[in-house]
Structures are given as C-alpha cells and as structure tokens.
C-alpha cells in the first residue's frame, strides 16, 4: 500500500474487501511515523499501543460486517481536543501534564465509528499563531521544505497528513487554523459552519469563532470526516439543531471580491488563484466580481474580537483546578505566577490586548465597534450569496515562509490570516483546496484555493471542490 496516495475512501474499500487489515494499515502509519516524524515533529505524542488495540477492534467490526465510514481509519488529533485519560496540552507549558477527564463530542463520535487515534499533533500554543512556531515544544516542519513552517495553528495535523504519517487529521479553525496550514502543506482543510460540529471538549480560544474540522488529502475524504463528526450536541449551546435541510441547487456561479483579493497578495499566489478560476470557467462555471466593501476590515475586527475572547476564555487557567500550579504565599500570586510561567509570549500578548479592548473606557471604541463591523461583514456575505454559489479567494496571501522569518513581527504573522478570518467572522463554511505550486529556492511550495459557501451549505463546497480537484 502506497501511503502517499492513500485516501480514506480508497482505504475504506480495501479494508472492507480485506485486501489488508486495519492493524496492518495502522502499523504502516506507525512505521512511517518512526521513519519521518523525528524530522517533521508533527506529533507531540504517538499512541502506538492503544492505536493497535483500536485497530484490532476495528478489524472485529469489519469482520462482523458492521464497518462504518471511518472504521479502522488512522487519524491524528490536534492537541487541543480532549480524549479521556490522554494528555491534552494545547502545546502549552500550563497544560503540559494535564490529562483529559472526558471525551470531546467529536472524539466520542469518531470512537463510535471505530476510528484509530495515532497521536496528538503539534500546534501553536492554544491555537494562537499561523506557523506552529508558538508551540511550547518546538516547531513543526513543512514536509515540502523542512526549512519552512507548515502554517498554523493546526500545523502538526497538516504536516502529518501531507507527510503521510496520518491518513487524515482533526484540526480547529478560529481564523484560518485549518485552512492556512492545509494550503501551505498542499492538502484539503475544511472549516465547518459555526455550530455544525460540537465544540464540547475543544479547548476554547475565540468561542464565537472556533470550529473543529478535518484535514484530508481529498474533498471526498473531508466530507466523510465531516459527516462523522457533525450534528447537534446538547453539551454545546451554540451547536445548530439537526433540521432537515434542502440541498442548494448549484447555479455554477463563483463570486470573487476582486479589489480585496488583489491587495497585498504574492504575485505567484495570485497567478495560481487566477489559473484555478480559469479551470473552473472551462468546467462551465461563470466567475463574477462581487462587491464586499467591508472585507478589508475583517482582519482588524478579528484582532479585536479574538483577543477579547481569548482574554476571557484563558482566565480559567489559574493553577487551581488543573494544570500547572506555582506555589506562592497568596492566592493572587498563585494566579499571576502560574500564568506568567505557563503561558508563552503570543498567548500573553493576546491576553493583554484582549484585556485592553474590553477595559472600561475602551470597550465601546474597540470591542463593541468591532462587533458592529462584524455584522457588516456578515451582511456582505449574505448579499453576495444572493447571486453566487460560493466566494473564492486565495487561502493565504503567501506560500509557506521560513521558520523564524516572522517570529519577531506579530503584525506580519497576523496578516497571514487576511483572507481566512472572513469566514470565521461570518460563521460560514470554507475550504482550502490544493491549487498548484510556486517555486521558491528550488523547492515547490503548495498554494491553496479557498471557497466560502453560505451558512450550513457545506454540500456546495463538496460539489464545487470536486470540480476544482477534477480541473
């Protein structure tokens, strides 16, 4: 079996046809991890023994004729999702030894399918970052060029799938954290509609923005994982009800916010983007310019709303109930010393910015104003979707950059998210699809093509995504 070409869909067929067992498949991945992960550092921990046990259980399900779409499929899980009894650290010193007390809902659903968990993947600490350099446990490398970042924050998950050391992975996306690393690693990354997948058991970063989603080799695989993890959950009050939905009939019209797309994007990346649009035209699509005048404000809005939510969400890490605890004479000092020692620089920066934008005297001008502009961005999408099936943009303005290149420039790092944050602010689903490569210093670096669909219409992404792949 050639793992570099393997997809969930093809593995499913082979497993059910008994061409190989789930245990053999899992062992092949464990073997690849041993051979490649020293270099890539995609995993923070590999669960060799339990993965084999899970694979044996999957084989029993297959033999009994009870196989489900993900039975025996070896997956990697981002380190900010809870699996009972397992360490879940969010790549932070403050949770370095924290063991989860329960399963996240997405994990529970994967367990019910008989999926195999290979290990937990590296990430930017608490999902804050676009390069995986903010991990407290060292950066992950891009499989296409080891001197470059895999993107972030789900960089470990993306590198694992692209490096064929996991068949698929779960990531989380708050401002592009699934799509941008998928783009930089040349794979598919799906951010689902806000509320489509339960956030129960996902460590919260920006609660109005966070979503769990798959990183896979193909759009078909992304749909298979999405179907397995989506659905209403009483444990997440923002989870959407399971109402029967009418599939949108696709008019084959793609909207492009031209003025926005052309600002600050690498010329080679723009060229790949336009080529993909041309391929879609050849496949019978109409490509139309759309006016979305508030998109240029998406990134500034995001870097107010997100830190504000970060500063409140991360208040829970106080050294009292779980995680790191630094002993000190007073309870106030226990808090400040634990948090000072446990959080890395980017997390501290965002907590402080969030504290500022929410503070008395400033919250009207920053946080409340940002919420108002967020509504305008949402309205831009609603209006645009009256005339088009989906909106296309590059996933990221640049190909993968060098490790260390942006580490000392927080604003340059934030600009990586300029195209991806728009979908999180509007709560709509979006996918990054591989769309060619650009040459840099003798290496070929992948570039992503982003499609954004109306609220709850992931099926539009799956349908057009197939045409992008086929083009």
């Amino acid at each position, binding site marked *: 079996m050639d793992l570099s070409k393997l997809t969930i869909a093809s593995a499913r067929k082979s497993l059910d046809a008994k061409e190989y067992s789930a245990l053999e498949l899992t062992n092949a991945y464990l073997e690849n991890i041993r051979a490649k992960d020293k270099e890539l550092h995609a995993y923070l921990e590999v669960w060799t023994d339990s993965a084999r046990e899970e694979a044996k259980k999957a084989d029993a399900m297959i033999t009994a004729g009870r196989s489900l779409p993900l039975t025996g499929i070896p997956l990697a899980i981002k380190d900010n999702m809870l699996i009972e009894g397992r360490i879940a650290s969010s790549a932070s010193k403050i949770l370095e030894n*924290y*063991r989860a*007390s*329960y399963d996240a809902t997405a994990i529970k659903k994967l367990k019910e399918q008989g999926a195999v968990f290979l290990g937990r993947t590296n990430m930017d600490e608490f999902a804050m970052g676009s390069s995986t350099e903010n991990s407290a446990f060292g950066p992950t490398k891009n499989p296409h060029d080891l001197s470059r970042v895999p993107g972030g924050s789900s960089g470990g998950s993306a590198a694992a799938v692209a490096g064929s050391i996991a068949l698929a992975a779960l990531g989380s996306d708050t401002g592009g954290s699934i799509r941008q690393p998928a783009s930089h690693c040349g794979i598919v990354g799906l951010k689902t509609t806000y509320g489509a997948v339960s956030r129960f058991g996902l460590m919260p970063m920006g609660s109005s923005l966070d979503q769990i989603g798959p990183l896979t080799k193909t759009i078909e695989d992304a749909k298979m994982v999405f179907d397995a993890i989506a659905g209403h959950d009483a444990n997440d*009050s*923002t989870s959407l009800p399971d109402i029967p939905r009418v599939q949108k009939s696709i008019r084959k019209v793609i909207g492009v916010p031209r003025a926005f797309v052309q600002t600050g994007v690498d010329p080679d990346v723009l060229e790949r983007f336009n080529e993909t649009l041309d391929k879609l035209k050849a496949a019978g699509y109409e490509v139309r310019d759309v006016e979305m005048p*508030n998109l*240029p*404000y998406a990134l*500034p*809005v995001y*870097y*107010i709303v997100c830190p504000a939510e970060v*500063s409140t969400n991360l*208040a829970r890490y*106080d*050294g*009292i*109930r*779980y*995680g*790191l*605890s630094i002993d*000190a*004479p*007073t*309870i*106030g000092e*226990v*808090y*400040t*010393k634990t*948090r*000072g020692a446990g959080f890395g*620089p980017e997390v*501290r*920066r965002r*907590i*402080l*910015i969030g*504290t*500022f*934008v929410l*503070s008395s005297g400033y919250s009207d*001008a*920053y946080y*409340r*104003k*940002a*919420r*108002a*502009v*967020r*509504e*305008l961005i*949402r309205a831009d999408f609603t209006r645009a979707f009256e005339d088009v099936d989906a909106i296309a943009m590059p996933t990221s303005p640049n190909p993968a950059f060098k490790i260390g290149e942006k580490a000392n420039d*927080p*604003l340059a790092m*934030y600009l990586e998210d300029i195209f991806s944050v728009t979908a999180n602010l509007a*709560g709509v689903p979006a996918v990054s699809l591989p769309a060619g490569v650009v040459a840099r210093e003798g290496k070929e670096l992948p570039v992503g093509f982003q499609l954004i669909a109306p609220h709850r219409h992931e099926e539009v992404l799956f349908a057009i995504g197939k045409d992008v792949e086929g083009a």
Partner: protein
Amino acid sequence: MTKVDVRALAELARLEVSDAELAKLEKEIPDILKFVEQIQQVGTKAAPSSPELRNVMRADENPLESGIYTEKLLEAAPKRKGDRIVVKQVVSRKKN
C-alpha cells in the same frame, strides 16, 4: 497613538510579566492597536444584535447522579484534601 499602560493590563489579567518583556510589549501593543483602529473609519453605530446570538437554556431536569464525576475531576487538581481542592486563603479577617 493610544497610550497603553501594559503593567496595569498585566495586573488586570493576573499575569506576571518581566520588565524586559514589558518594554517589548509597550512597543508592540500600540502598533497592533494602531492597525485594528482602522475600523474607526467605518460609519456604523453600536452592534445590532445578531439573530444567531440568543440565550440557549436547558431544562432543569434529569440531574446527574451526585458524585459520579467527582473523582475524575479531582484527579486533575494540583492539590487536594479528600474531596476538596486546596487553595490559599481567599477571605481574610485582617483589615489593612
């Protein structure tokens, strides 16, 4: 440019920050705020509440059996005594 008292913010956020980092943040945070201040150019007033934002309540019924998760949750606590988490004194009689 907005003057930012990073030391005061760190106190509010209960975050110990070294003097060296404080000096760095005093440059970085105003730069980031200057960038996000672009939104002031948008002519819109306070947020009309989004239709998707609403309170979601659960019926107060079918309570869990008391204590079934106690041990699981306490296992994670840095310091415990029996079924309690040990913390430093929170309320003090002394007035200063």
